[in-house]
């Protein structure tokens, strides 16, 4: 069972839900927020690097290159600039598609690896895998896609998605059996939830909503879920104790009675 915890809006409590649910159910956790991975702050597992993630980038053999510009004309990312007597690559723009090498009529292009991030694994109370994007790099998606290769199809896998509704979030959701959308009961939460719902429906993945900080805002999210027939799987109340535990990096299933069972029930409801 692969469950992705996503949200649209940032800071709604994805990591809180993912970590507590993984702990309560003995699941393996995959932190797919590779730009800002936070889950291990709550688990404190000793992380060990298991893989470098690289993209293929073109290398130019200037003995063969005739500066014909075919590669630059092909590149849709504007990653190649042909100068009067040289050729320049903007590596952060390169997607590693390999097209330039294919179109070069002079076999002047080969490919070399450029490291853009890393994959880590840690064993604590549960197993965690985490991707990490190198600072200054733009492309998070290839790292998430590598990280997902470690997802075990047999056990319970919980994927903590990055915020937003862009390509990294979609990559984290793709191929999941279920998506939990965590939101807060505010106009901002509702607005971004609606976009996330559109995406999950497009991907045709069953989903439900968890409302975090229940009680702080208005009724908009609940009304919307009712009207759209979206199940509200859990409501986590706003209280200072939960907020303070979060600030210290302590998962609240460990400290507040009754929540472990609620997260077991949440998993069972999701697994049907």
């Amino acid at each position, binding site marked *: 069972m692969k469950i992705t915890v996503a949200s649209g809006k940032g800071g709604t409590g994805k990591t809180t839900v993912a970590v507590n649910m993984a702990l309560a159910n003995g699941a393996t956790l995959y932190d797919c927020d590779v730009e*800002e991975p936070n889950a291990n702050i709550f688990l404190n597992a000793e992380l060990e690097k298991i893989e470098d993630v690289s993209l293929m980038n073109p290398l130019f053999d200037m003995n063969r290159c005739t500066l014909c510009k075919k590669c630059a004309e092909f590149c849709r990312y504007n990653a190649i600039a042909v100068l009067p007597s040289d050729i320049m690559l903007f590596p952060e723009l390169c997607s590693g598609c390999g097209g330039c090498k294919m179109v070069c009529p002079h076999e002047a292009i080969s490919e070399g690896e450029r490291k853009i991030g890393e994959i880590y694994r840690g064993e604590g109370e549960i197993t965690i895998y985490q991707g990490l994007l190198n600072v200054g790099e733009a492309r998070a998606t290839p790292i998430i896609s590598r990280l997902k290769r470690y997802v075990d199809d047999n056990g319970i896998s919980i994927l903590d998605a990055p915020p*937003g*509704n862009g390509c990294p979030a979609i990559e984290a959701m793709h191929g999941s059996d279920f998506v939990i959308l965590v939101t807060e009961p505010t106009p901002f939460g509702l*607005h971004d939830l609606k976009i996330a719902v559109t995406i999950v429906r*497009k991907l045709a993945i069953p989903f439900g909503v968890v409302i975090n900080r229940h009680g*702080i*805002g208005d009724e908009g999210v609940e009304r919307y879920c009712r009207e759209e027939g979206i199940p509200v799987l859990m409501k986590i109340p706003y209280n200072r104790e939960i907020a303070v535990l979060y600030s210290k990096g302590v998962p609240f299933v460990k400290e507040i009675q009754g929540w472990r069972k609620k997260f077991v029930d949440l998993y069972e409801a999701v697994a049907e």
Partner: protein
Amino acid sequence: MKQIAVASGKGGTGKTSMVASFAGFAGAVLADCDVDAPNLHLILKPEVVEKIPYRGMEVAEIDSDTCIECGACERACRFNAIENFRVIGEKCEGCGVCPLVCPVDAIEMKKRVTGHVYTAHTRFGEFVYGLLGAGEEASGKLVTVARKKAVEIAERVGAPLIIIDAPAGIGCPVIASIGNTDLLVMVVEPTMAAVHDMERLLEVAAHFKVNTVAIINKYDINEDVTKRIEDFCTARGIEIVGKIPFSKKFTEAMVRGMSIAEYDASLAEMMKNIWERIEEYVNASDESHNSV
């Protein structure tokens, strides 16, 4: 003209609430660059002037009548975006390799409208915001288009400043939002997670040589962590321009579609002081900027 980006690394720390408040004091052009989850317009209630279609990357389309199911495209695609002779739109990066390798010309790259840039009037001044279609990609490029539009408008109306509401994270759309700005205002909460994210964002800011100041939001949730943030920032010469207490009034204001400065007089005073310090900082950075 100066540009200020408000960013955080971690999501949900209060970027948009800050920008909405500053908007009332600044006389700036505002730009919401959180293009896949924009929220600022919910407070600003824009009166849209112009809706400009945005065409992002093209997407491959396979004509199933022509396709001979040889699988050459699937083998050549580095993004695993082709399965069973069909393109998975969400995974396609628009690179154009598949039509190159197709032996029967069954694949075409199609341009599509993948989002919009809006220009609008608001009670606080001119406003530009990008909105990416649900599930579309190339958000960094859309940010760049929105920022160009903001500069154009600022020049036209003679606004001295642009305030950018940046997305969460440190990747493509964040780099596009904070690159070439005069100041990064970082909004951080005193939580272990937010501190971790702040450190990564600061590395990005340093990488792109952007000056930074910080605001600690909800500083009283955990004063130990607040102290750590202050020590960390002081050691790096990053000024803390404000410390804001936790208050339910921020959410109450949001529910009513108001900025906190419009909703609560004492918090308005606090936000105004923070804004004045930011303004001083940006204006003082003049000389150092010109000398580069």
